[in-house]
């Protein structure tokens, strides 16, 4: 049986698309996460995209690329983009890259209903 070390869960909240990444974000997983989120965003055309990082157990610089890529995709579609609830380890990487100057980072409760989708 294949064990998923990373999956994306989608939820919606007042027309916003909330993509919660659970597990390890590296170069290998980032490709699938990217396709998953972009596909959902193109299909549903939400009013905003929120990337929830509260369930990320590992992230390297591939995660920075993933965040910047989604920022650029969302801005192509004229959709506001934000990152929410990074863990302490993820926050350290966001700080080192100065991401707070480029991307809105929020903290606190964001999501209600969710549909799960394994990557």
């Amino acid at each position, binding site marked *: 049986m294949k064990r998923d*070390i990373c999956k994306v869960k989608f939820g919606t909240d007042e027309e916003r698309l909330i993509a919660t990444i659970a597990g*390890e974000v*590296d*170069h*290998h997983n*980032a*490709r699938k996460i*990217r396709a998953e989120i972009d596909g959902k965003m193109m299909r549903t055309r939400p009013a905003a995209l929120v990337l929830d990082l509260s369930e990320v157990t*590992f*992230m*390297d*610089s*591939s995660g*920075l*690329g*993933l965040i*910047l*890529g989604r920022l650029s995709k969302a801005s192509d579609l004229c959709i506001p983009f934000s990152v929410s609830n990074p863990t302490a*380890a993820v926050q350290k*990487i966001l700080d*080192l*890259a100065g991401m707070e100057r480029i991307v809105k980072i929020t903290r606190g409760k964001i999501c209600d209903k969710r549909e799960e989708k394994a990557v």
Partner: protein
Amino acid sequence: MKKRNRINEIKVTLPSYSVNEAAARAVVSAFTAQLNPTFDELSDIKCAVSEAVTNSIVHGYRDMIGPVLIGVKLYDDRSVRIEVKDKGRGIEDVEVAMQPLFTTDPDGERSGMGFTLIENFMDTLNVISAPGKGTRVVMKKKLSALPVSR
């Protein structure tokens, strides 16, 4: 000054499949765990290993599969030496490649922050490379002293 002694070492060779990025992190962190690093130290080491191995996979062996050699040495002064080596295409200009945000792969959504993160998470980083000669990344970190048990 007391000479430090090597107390253990491991060598692992993995083919450059991207799925092995997670395997490389798991091997290094499981092996380093015997020095009782803190959670943060282990997170830093895992990230550094992931960056170096990903570089070999994405850049070293861009359109092919080749061996990624990983060596970890542990010393009795609580330092860890990690080497990640590939026989891939090598780096034209190491100094330029190490600049924050520099990447040769703009379409693949690479952030260009890999070496910068390693430099921040490890005490030392050495990159030895030449075009066609592969790349060798050597990084070291000294772990904090263990708390004194009563």
